[in-house]
């Protein structure tokens, strides 16, 4: 008698799906959507400040007046008008680009997927900051491209560590395809790469013939209105720049882009067509008209003010409530604070306690491909109000007290491997 595994396809999945399994940690994030829980886990922008009624009218007009275009198939590269506007947006960061070199994608997540698809064979190494964006790590895993993490500090990626990582990989006979970096208001670390380091990183990669993937979703969200000069602004040949409207406008429209050297762009367009035929035309037109008809720069300023206030609330609460030995980054833009707890804490193992105490965060191990990050957690300040953030940090402190008490009872400092297995610890994207 043969049993039933409940999945008749189980023997037929590609090897790259091996890590796609149910996870207790992911399940725990489900509770975060309940209003009783203060979720410091998700990276959802605060959309309440958008001019929703005016956008509704725009959407209505778009269908009524241009419906046959907006609802039709479109160009695999994206509509020309939006690509021109994207160049104007990038000009704010010092980038001089031609619309022909822009490929519009289903969010910048798709752009990164396409870039990885056209560059990485299984086994090719991707260099990324330690820690790095969890969604990027998922893409690299799906293409079976191992990640080698490169140290970063409060000034961003450490150039000497980058050089050493390249040399180490090459000495081991490994092929490094590109460096993936988030230079501004890093997700999850919250830090920004210093200007001199950008220059140095670009030099190192150019000399090593390694492309830079510059992922910049948060670049316009600097709290003191500073807009940092993009790496791409000074290196058009060796940088593929990824941009997004998800943080500056609306993630639900799923529109991002890649700016790439001509030859790479050609392949990206073909890959884009193979993957999606074309990015959604209606969504592109919505964004194009929003950029043309609304004061989008003022909207971004409003976002900055909101997020700055919430950042301040989080930092003040951390200062008040965190135990001795805890440290955290002080972001000057973006969505995230990176918290490091004293020795002995395991943020993955204590997440059930946190959820029980009605507060959620993302454990640090989600942002490493190599098991590091057990003492770290990403705290988001983008979505909850300042008052809720304060309450959430207060609850988190209570969780730490409880965890500390248990650790003291048992003598603390245990290898996490001895604890119950919790699996992958990244939340779904709509975790509030």
């Amino acid at each position: 008698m043969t049993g039933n595994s409940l999945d008749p396809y189980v023997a037929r999945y590609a090897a790259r799906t091996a890590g796609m399994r149910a996870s207790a940690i992911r399940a725990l994030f489900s509770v975060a959507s309940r209003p009783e829980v203060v979720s410091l886990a998700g990276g959802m922008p605060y959309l309440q400040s958008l001019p929703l009624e005016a956008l509704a009218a725009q959407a209505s007009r778009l269908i009524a007046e241009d419906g046959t275009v907006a609802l039709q198939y479109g160009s695999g590269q994206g509509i020309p008008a939006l690509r021109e506007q994207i160049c104007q947006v990038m000009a704010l960061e010092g980038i001089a680009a031609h619309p022909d070199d822009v490929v519009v994608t289903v969010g910048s997540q798709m752009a990164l997927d396409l870039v990885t698809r056209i560059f990485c064979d299984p086994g090719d190494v991707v260099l990324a900051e330690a820690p790095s964006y969890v969604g990027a790590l998922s893409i690299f895993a799906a293409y079976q491209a191992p990640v080698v993490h490169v140290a970063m500090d409060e000034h961003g990626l450490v150039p000497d560590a980058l050089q050493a990582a390249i040399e180490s990989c090459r000495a081991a006979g490994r092929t490094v395809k590109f460096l993936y970096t988030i230079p501004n208001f890093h997700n999850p670390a919250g830090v920004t790469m210093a200007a001199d380091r950008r220059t140095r990183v670009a030099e190192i990669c150019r000399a090593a013939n390694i492309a830079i993937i510059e992922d910049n979703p948060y670049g316009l969200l600097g709290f003191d209105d500073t807009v940092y000069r993009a790496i791409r602004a000074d290196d058009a040949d060796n940088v593929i720049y990824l941009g997004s409207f998800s943080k500056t406008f609306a993630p639900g429209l799923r529109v991002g882009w890649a700016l790439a050297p001509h030859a790479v762009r050609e392949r990206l367009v073909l890959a884009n067509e193979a993957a999606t035929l074309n990015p959604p035309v209606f969504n592109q037109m919505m964004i194009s008209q929003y950029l043309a008809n609304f004061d989008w720069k003022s909207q971004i300023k409003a976002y900055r003010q909101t997020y700055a206030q919430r950042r301040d609330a989080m930092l003040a609460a951390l200062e008040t409530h965190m135990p001795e030995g805890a440290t955290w980054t002080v972001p000057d833009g973006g969505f995230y604070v990176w918290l490091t707890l004293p020795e002995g804490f395991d943020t993955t193992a204590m997440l059930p306690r946190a959820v029980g105490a009605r507060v959620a965060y993302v454990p640090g191990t989600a942002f490493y491909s190599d098991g590091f990050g057990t003492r770290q957690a990403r705290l988001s300040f983008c979505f909850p109000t300042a008052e809720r953030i304060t309450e959430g940090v207060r609850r988190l402190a209570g969780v730490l007290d409880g965890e500390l008490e248990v650790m003291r009872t048992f003598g603390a400092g245990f290898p996490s491997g001895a604890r119950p297995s919790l699996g992958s610890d990244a939340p779904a994207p709509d975790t509030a």
Partner: protein
Amino acid sequence: MDARHVMVLAGGLSHEREVSLRSGSRLAQALRQVGHDVTVRDADDTLLDWVGAHHPDAAIIALHGGRGENGAVQTVLELAGVPFVGTAAHECRLAWDKATAKVLLRRAGFVTPRWVTLSHSSFRDMGAAGLVAAVARELAFPLLLKPHQGGSALGTALVRDPDQLPAALVGSFAYGDVVLVEEYAAGTEVAVTVIEGDDGPVALPAVEIVPPGDIFDYEARYTAGTTTYHTPARLDSELDAAVAELAVAAHRVLGLRDVSRTDVIVTADGRAQFLEVNVSPGLTETSMLPMAVATAGRDLGETYAELAERAIARAADRTAAI
């Protein structure tokens, strides 16, 4: 059967919210297929107002863990006068506490793996080292650690030697202040669903579980393709009868109502040992109750619709008695 307005409660605030949402969705679909009008909703602070406004004919609790199984939601429904499928509030409290259920089953003459129940405060106040040593002396390794309340194997850890015990305890205490430390019984794991009908509680065919590792953990439960299930279980007729008897006994001894699922391990010596019982069994695509229902040749929607009718009739009887 008349079309009824059935409220399926799913979600909740427990660690098992995700599983509950899946259970609720599956159950709602099954009930709609047999013609019922179903509302799936959470058990939150709008529940009583909603019940007052919509007067559902019956409720089915697809909440797992926490208030959905510890009697809290059942009490609310009892107070609100909503007929509901499942065990009454008081009895939920007995079954929900794993150690209490084990004690009652053992008193009734059934076998259950040896265990101790320990709170964090016991370790803290009486010295962890001594207590860990005492546990290691008293119980035979490997040990299975389980939060004494809760399901879906969340917080469950297998501990092979005493050195691993403190770390595993720290992990399990993240789910609650009390941990059941149980001797790990290797053998054939089966889940037996009990459904009540006019003739009393009846065991459905046992579902045998063969997880990929030593324990049937969350990943093994909810990743289709990882665990192999045998329906009916590959037990000889004597053992098959024994696990069915155990499940029905658990249902009766604990005073359960309508539906339950008892987890049993059949050890190499041929004994059926009680592990734990669930008053709100999972109903997801990888859950054992729907497998048992299908193996019995029954339909999930019809089965729960019949249970809803029983709940409605029960409420009518009570009203008539008053």
